[in-house]
C-alpha cells in the first residue's frame, strides 16, 4: 500500500514492536505528529516538557526493560536538545532510536530556519546515524536502526528525515521485527584456556558490568561463584544484576565502591570480567590496577579488549554462551583462605561504617535515608538517580530485588538525567519508581514534573537537599583547600511549593522519622510526590579512591 513518509515512519515503529514514544512536536515533524494522531490506538506518545526529557525518558524506558527506547524531535533546536540524552545512552550502551525531522532537501545546506546538520553533530555519539534523502530508503533505514541499536554492544541510532521525505508517498509493506545480528560463539580453545585459569585460581573475583546486567546473567553468576568459591563485585553499570541476599556479592567497586569489593578485587588472583569495560572510575590508576591478578574479559565488543587494561584472555563473542560454557566446564572447588580474607574485609568495612554512623548523632544522614527507602519501598521498585553524591549513595546503599531495577547515567554522568528517565521507566513497566536526586541535578530538568503530573505518573522523588553541589564540594574539600568556588547554591527555592505549583505533592523531611512518614505516604499516594530531604552540606561519599590514585590511596574516613 502507498503511504506518506510520515506514516511509513510510524508504521515501521509499530511494526518493530514500539508501543510508546517520547517526544515534542515542531515545524519539521508536524507530519510525523499527524501520523501519530492517526495511529494513536496503536502507539502511545508521551509529550515531555523538553526534548532532553524525551531523550532521557526513552533511555530510562530501555534500561528498565531492555527494549529499544524511541524519541522524536523536530529539526534544529529540537534535535540538538536530544544530544545530551543520546550521548548518555551511547556511553552506557543503551539501545535507542531517535527520529528527527529536518528542513526539506531543497533547503538543506542553506542555513534555513531551524536547520542543523544533526547527523554531523551526533556522529561521535551514536552507534550509527542516517540522513534520509530518498523515501525508498526510509522504512529499511529505520529497521536497520533498530537492528544496530540492539545488536552486539547496544547503543543509540539517529534517523534524520527531511520534511519533503515525510510528505512524499511510497509503497509500504510491513516486515517482521528485525532480529539482533547473532554474535559468534567463542572457539573451544578459548573456552579451554579460560577454564584452565579458573581452575588454577585460588582467589577468584567475578566482576560484572552493564553487559552482564543487560543479559540478565545474575543467577548464573551466583551459581558460578558458588561452584568455584568466588566473590562477586560489580561496576556501577552492573548494579542490580545480582539480586540482594547473596553473601558472595560485595557490591560496587571503584572510586566510590565498597571497601571490601575494591580491596578484594585488588587481592584477587583472577578477575573474571563479564560485560565490563574497565573505565577509569572503576580502575583508578591502571598501572596499579589488580597487579596480582590474571584477567579474563568476556565482551561482545572487540574494541574493549585491551583498551583500558591488558587482559590475559579476551573472548569477543556471545557473552552469555561463553560464560555458561566456562561455568559448566570448570571444576567445583573451595577456597577457604580466600573466603576468610573476604569475610575479614567485609567486617573491616562494617567497622568503618559503624564509626561514621556513631559520629552522625541524630542527624538525617544519607545512609539513614536509604535504610528507610530500602525498608519501605514496594516490591519491584526501580531506583532511578541523577548524578552526584546522591547517586553514589544510591549505588552504595540501595537494595534491588530483581534485575533492571537501577537506572542511572554512569559513563556520561548526566546531571538532569533522572526525572526524564524515571518517567520513561514508569511508562515502560508500571512498576513503583523512586527517583533519588540532588538539589543541583534536579534544578537542571525539573520541568519534567509537569509531564509526571500530566500523565499522573506516581514517581516518588527523594530530593537529597544539601544546598550545595555536593560532589564538587567534596573534591574542593579534599583536594582544593576548601575553596568552595561556585558550589554553594544558596538558592531560595521552596521545593515543596514548587512541587505543589506543578500539581504534584510536596513533603519536607529533616529527621529520619519525618522522612519515614513522608516516604511511606509517598509510595502509596498514587501521584507524583517530591520529598525535600534536608541533609548536612558536608556529608561525603566514602570510601573514595582519589582520581588517578590506586587502592593504596583509599580514603575511608574524613574528620569534619
Amino acid at each position, binding site marked *: 500500500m502507498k503511504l506518506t513518509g510520515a506514516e511509513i515512519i510510524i508504521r515501521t515503529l509499530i511494526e518493530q514492536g514500539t508501543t510508546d514514544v517520547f517526544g515534542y512536536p515542531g515545524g519539521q515533524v508536524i507530519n510525523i505528529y499527524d501520523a501519530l494522531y492517526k495511529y494513536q490506538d496503536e502507539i502511545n506518545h508521551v509529550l515531555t516538557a523538553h526534548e532532553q526529557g524525551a531523550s532521557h525518558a526513552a533511555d530510562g524506558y530501555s534500561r528498565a526493560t531492555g527494549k529499544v527506547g524511541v524519541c522524536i524531535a523536530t529539526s534544529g533546536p529540537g534535535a540538538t536538545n536530544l544530544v545530551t540524552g543520546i550521548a548518555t545512552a551511547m556511553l552506557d550502551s543503551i539501545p535507542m532510536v531517535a527520529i528527527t525531522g529536518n528542513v526539506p532537501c531543497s533547503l538543506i545546506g542553506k542555513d534555513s530556519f531551524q536547520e542543523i546538520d544533526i*547527523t554531523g553533530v551526533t*556522529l561521535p555519539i551514536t552507534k*550509527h546515524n542516517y*540522513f534520509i534523502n530518498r523515501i525508498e530508503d526510509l522504512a529499511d533505514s529505520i529497521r536497520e536502526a533498530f537492528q544496530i541499536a540492539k545488536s552486539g554492544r547496544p547503543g543509540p541510532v539517529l534517523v534524520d528525515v527531511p520534511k519533503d521525505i515525510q510528505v512524499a508517498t511510497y509503497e509500504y509493506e510491513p516486515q517482521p521485527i528485525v532480529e539482533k545480528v547473532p554474535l559468534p560463539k567463542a572457539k573451544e580453545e578459548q573456552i579451554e584456556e579460560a577454564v584452565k585459569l579458573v581452575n588454577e585460581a585460588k582467589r577468584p573475583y567475578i566482576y560484572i558490568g552493564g553487559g552482564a546486567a543487560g543479559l540478565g546473567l545474575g543467577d548464573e553468576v551466583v551459581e558460578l561463584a558458588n561452584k568455584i568459591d568466588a566473590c562477586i563485585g560489580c561496576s556501577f553499570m552492573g548494579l542490580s544484576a545480582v539480586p540482594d541476599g547473596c553473601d558472595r556479592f560485595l557490591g560496587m567497586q571503584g572510586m566510590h565502591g565498597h571497601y571490601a569489593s575494591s580491596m578484594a578485587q585488588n587481592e584477587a588472583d583472577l578477575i573474571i570480567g563479564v560485560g565490563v569495560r574497565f573505565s577509569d572510575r572503576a580502575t583508578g590508576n591502571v598501572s596499579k590496577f589488580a597487579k596480582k591478578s590474571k584477567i579474563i574479559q568476556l565482551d561482545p565488543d*572487540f*574494541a574493549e*579488549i585491551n*583498551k583500558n587494561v591488558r587482559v590475559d584472555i579476551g573472548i569477543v563473542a556471545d557473552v552469555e554462551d561463553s560464560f555458561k560454557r566456562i561455568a559448566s566446564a570448570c571444576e567445583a572447588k573451595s577456597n577457604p583462605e580466600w573466603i576468610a580474607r573476604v569475610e575479614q574485609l567485609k567486617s573491616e568495612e562494617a567497622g568503618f561504617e559503624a564509626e561514621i554512623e556513631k559520629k552522625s548523632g541524630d542527624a538525617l544522614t544519607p545512609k539513614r535515608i536509604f535504610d528507610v527507602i530500602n525498608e519501605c519501598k514496594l516490591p519491584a521498585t526501580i531506583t532511578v538517580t541523577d548524578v552526584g553524591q546522591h547517586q553514589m549513595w544510591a549505588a552504595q546503599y540501595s537494595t534491588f530485588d530483581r534485575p533492571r531495577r537501577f537506572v542511572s547515567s554512569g559513563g556520561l554522568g548526566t546531571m538532569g538525567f533522572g526525572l526524564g528517565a524515571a518517567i520513561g521507566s514508569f511508562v515502560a513497566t508500571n512498576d513503583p519508581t523512586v527517583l533519588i536526586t540532588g538539589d543541583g541535578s534536579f534544578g537542571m530538568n525539573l520541568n519534567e514534573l509537569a509531564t509526571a503530573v500530566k500523565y499522573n505518573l506516581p514517581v516518588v522523588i527523594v530530593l537529597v537537599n544539601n544546598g550545595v553541589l555536593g560532589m564538587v564540594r567534596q573534591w574542593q574539600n579534599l583536594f582544593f583547600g576548601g575553596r568552595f568556588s561556585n558550589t554553594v547554591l544558596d538558592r531560595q527555592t521552596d521545593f515543596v511549593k514548587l512541587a505543589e505549583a506543578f500539581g504534584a505533592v510536596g513533603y519536607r523531611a529533616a529527621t529520619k522519622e519525618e522522612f519515614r512518614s513522608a516516604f511511606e505516604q509517598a509510595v502509596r499516594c498514587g501521584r507524583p510526590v517530591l520529598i525535600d530531604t534536608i541533609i548536612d552540606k558536608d556529608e561525603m561519599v566514602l570510601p573514595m579512591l582519589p582520581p588517578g590514585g590506586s587502592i593504596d590511596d583509599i580514603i575511608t574516613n574524613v574528620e569534619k
Partner: protein
Amino acid sequence: MNKFVIAVYVDNRFGVLTRVTSMFTRRGFNIDALTVGETERSEYSRITICLSGDGYAREQLINQLRKLHNVKKVDVLEDDSIKRELMLIKVGYTKDTRSDIITAADVYRAKVIDYTPEEMCIEVTGDPSKIDAFIRLMIPFGIIEICRTGIVALERGNTTLLDK
C-alpha cells in the same frame, strides 16, 4: 614509533569519509596521511591511512575502524607492499640552477610538467622516502609550493584485501 600503512574498504557512499575521520579526532589518533578513492568494486571505496605509533595505537585504530558500520574490511599492509605517492613541486630557478634541477629530476625519473620564466613544476612519483629525498634535494633551489597525495598501496600477489 613505527610507521604503519592501513587499508580500509568502506561503503562508497556520501558521508562515509567523515565518519572515519571524525572517529580519528574523537579517539585522538594522529594520522600522517590519508588517501581515498574508488576500487575494483563500485560499491566500495578504499582508504589508505599512514600512522606513526606503537602496537597499542595500531590495535586501537583497527578495532575502532572495524566498529564503524560502513567499514567492510580493515588490514595492516605487509611491510613489503607496493607503496607509491605522487608529488607536484614548484621550484624557482635561475639561469645558473636550471640545468641542475632538470638533471636531478631526470635522475629521480621525475617530469617537468610546467615551465614559466621563473619557476618550474615537477611531478615525482615513488615511495614516500624517495619523495622526501627529492624535497631535500630541492630545498637549496628554493621550493615555492608542494602538494603530495599521500600514499596509495597494494600488497603483492594475486589476491585482494577483500579475499583475505
